[in-house]
């Protein structure tokens, strides 16, 4: 098993970040073309906790090295299941996801948490990402290590792109909100 962890901060308040999270893989994000579709499967507010629970299906298309497709099979499309929880009281957005495709051979489990940053909770948001990667090809330790290492490398690469892309979405969303506000103020004055 290999573990990947990273923490970073965004220069936007939690409300803005958690809203833009739903648009993370929109065309505003030019850095993550490997995410080709995001579908919402279910969504409800839990009456007891007030938490918004959402299930999504994320479809990716990624070029894999030949040796890996030979082991895992040929399809380049893969599916990720994500269940997320937004607690508006504690201002915590948690996204838990794992791979559905190749699940018999490889397990990639990711937990992402967005909370107001401790040092600047009004205008900064902390992002923490943890992933556990486990390959299950019994006995073939060498191949197992190779698959896990490749997956970690790809994960590191995608995490960096994900961050860059999300910055684009956050910036674009801020512009659109500002325009919207201006339009509303104009119409109120008229």
């Amino acid at each position: 098993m290999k573990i990947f962890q990273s923490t970073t901060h965004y220069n936007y308040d939690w409300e803005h970040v958690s809203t833009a999270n739903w648009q993370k893989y929109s065309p505003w994000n030019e850095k993550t073309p490997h995410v080709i579709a995001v579908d919402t499967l279910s969504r409800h507010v839990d009456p007891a906790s007030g938490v918004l629970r959402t299930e999504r299906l994320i479809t990716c298309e990624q070029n894999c090295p030949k040796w890996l497709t030979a082991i895992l099979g040929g399809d380049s499309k893969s599916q990720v299941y994500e269940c997320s929880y937004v607690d508006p009281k504690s201002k915590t957005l948690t996204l838990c996801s794992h791979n559905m495709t190749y699940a018999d051979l490889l397990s990639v489990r990711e937990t992402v948490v967005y909370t107001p940053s401790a040092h600047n909770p009004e205008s900064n948001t902390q992002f923490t990402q943890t992933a556990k990667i486990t390959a299950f090809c019994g006995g073939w330790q060498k191949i197992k290590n190779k698959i896990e290492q490749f997956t970690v490398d790809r994960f590191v690469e995608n995490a960096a792109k994900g961050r860059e892309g999300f910055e684009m979405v956050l910036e674009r969303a801020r512009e659109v909100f500002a325009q919207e506000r201006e339009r509303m103020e104009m119409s109120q004055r008229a």
Partner: protein
Amino acid sequence: MSASLAAECNEVKERYDTCFLKWYSEKFLRGNAQTDECAPLFTQYKTCLNKALKERGIDKMLEDAREDSRETDIEYMKPSGKS
């Protein structure tokens, strides 16, 4: 907004996503989530999506995937929430 895995659902998905985003930022985050005006659009989108998932055999894979969320449900939907 992002696309749907089924092109035929894109239009209704776009309308639902737009509605949800407005509800999320203007109502849910402000503690005003008693009503959900996006429900009819979500029903339309789900009808389209479920058909596509079935055709592609993804519905079966989803059943297994969903099993795991029971644990995270308990962890992240505590009635008191984290304080």
